[in-house]
């Protein structure tokens, strides 16, 4: 019998050896992989994300938890594929052209992956062609990050490119605001990584 609460706690505290041990034992016992995800891993990331939003946890705690989750996820990925479980959606994420910052982008990628979305990380300094390539691989939403006031105008070019094609574009980053999102006609904005998950849940509802 898998102790899902122990799995959750191990992820939140970043104890990847404990996560590996619990997940390995669960695989041995032929535990339902959906239960591992839905009762252990995804709620753990949701809880650390909520703590992050409430300023009870910060970036290092998120990273450590995500690394622990990843160590468990790596063990069950073949089983997830075999089970036919579908991701909640597929997201292309990148830092826009001219901008090499990736801390915020990586955090959002971690959180949305932890929430059950497939993520295509197109990296930093991403022009429209890079996002387009991800859309060709099935991405339904394009997520753009920018840390610089000088690079965020490129987000409008991304919005103008994808909007007529029915691909949604969401934006974030230090200088970005809801007002800027409204101004360029993007489909959503979040001021933190956990909010990005909630935004996507709304878009896919």
């Amino acid at each position, binding site marked *: 019998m898998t102790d899902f609460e122990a799995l959750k706690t191990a992820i939140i505290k*970043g104890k990847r050896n404990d996560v590996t041990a619990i997940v390995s034992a669960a695989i041995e016992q032929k535990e339902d992989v959906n239960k591992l995800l839905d009762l252990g891993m995804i709620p753990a990331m949701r809880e650390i994300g909520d703590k*992050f939003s409430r*300023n009870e946890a*910060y*970036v*290092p*705690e998120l*990273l*450590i938890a995500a*690394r622990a989750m990843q160590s468990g996820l790596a063990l069950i990925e073949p089983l997830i594929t075999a089970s036919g479980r579908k991701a909640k959606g597929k997201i292309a994420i990148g830092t826009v052209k*001219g*901008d*090499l*910052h*990736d*801390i*915020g982008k*990586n*955090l959002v990628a971690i959180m949305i992956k932890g929430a059950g979305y497939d993520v295509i990380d197109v990296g*930093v*300094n991403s022009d429209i062609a890079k996002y387009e390539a991800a859309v060709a691989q099935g991405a339904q939403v394009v997520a753009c990050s920018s840390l*610089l*006031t*000088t*690079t965020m105008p490129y987000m409008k070019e991304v919005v103008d490119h994808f909007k007529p094609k029915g691909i949604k574009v969401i934006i974030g980053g*230090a*200088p970005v605001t809801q007002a800027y999102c409204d101004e360029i006609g993007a489909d959503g904005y979040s*001021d*933190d*990584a956990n909010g990005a998950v909630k935004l996507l849940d709304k878009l896919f509802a």
Partner: protein
Amino acid sequence: MTGRERFLNQMNGGAFDRSFNMEFGYWDENFTEWKIFAENGIKNNAEADAFFAFDKIASVGSEVWMHPCFDSEVVEHHQDYDVIINSDGVICEVQNTGHASIPHFLKSVITTPDDWKKVKEERFRLDDPARIPDIEALKTRHPAGRDYPLGIWCGSMIGKIRDMLTFEGLAYAAYDYPEMVEDMVETCCQLVEQSLDMLLPHFQFDYASGWEDICFRSGPLVTVEFFRDVVMPRYKRIRRKLDQYGIKLWYIDCDGDVRPILPYFIEGGVNCLFPYEVNSCAHPGEILDAYDGQMKIMGGVDKIRLAAGREEIRKYLDSLVPYVERGGYIPFCDHRCPPNVPEDDYLFYLDLKKRMFGLKD
């Protein structure tokens, strides 16, 4: 009143005739894109400071970080970026298109205690002769009767370690090898203490300065507990030395939302933020009100507002008036001014700042 007297009084609770007038500088692009710089042959921040006749402020220090540094070299060349090993030993991507952006850090050469042991022995030696400052040359450059404020450099206790390990690398190392990271912080502290011992007896410094950049928009890049238990006690050691020589003001350059670790800056003896990035934290008044007298600010003029037109600039400067009048606050752009600020609006801002804060009738 000299600039030195004005600075000391404004930041330490005395009377001042007008606000100390300074700016942090500009992006490289401003020097080519702004007509006022291009037409007047202004090519760097020092020349811009002289051109605008800002009040002089200076700082001295000795080598308190890795020495010798790694040889910086390009390992891959691409159309719009290069992959390099930087002087901290981090493999990173940097744009080669001339646009300003911090590097995209990929990997550090230090991931284990064995890596650190080797780098520490080779590059962090306390007895490295290159760490000894040339006191006489510094005295010639900054004579005792100077009329401008002179600061002493107190380095970084954790920010440079973040640079050396990368952001993710520090998060993982602090969890996987806490003793190694604490030894890194201790090494930084010993290097700064040694530097202070060599410099403090020879000058009458007006302030101390440091750099961390250890916060992100979402808060600190190390856990609050790590900052409290590992970093803050080292600040206390440095503060004790500054106190022995009557240095009251100690600013730290730390962008991002510093609020979660602010109590520990204060407990450690840091009492000023510079250049205090507003957009990632809060209006400077929030900090100055919450920590009245305990925390001061240099900077805090929101660069986003500077790009939002004259009415926004005026409204923002209006909101700063009570804090400038109270003392303990010198207003200037909250980082290097970016090129998306229209130069005419920037000149309007400089002029308005002078009118509002006593430089012009």
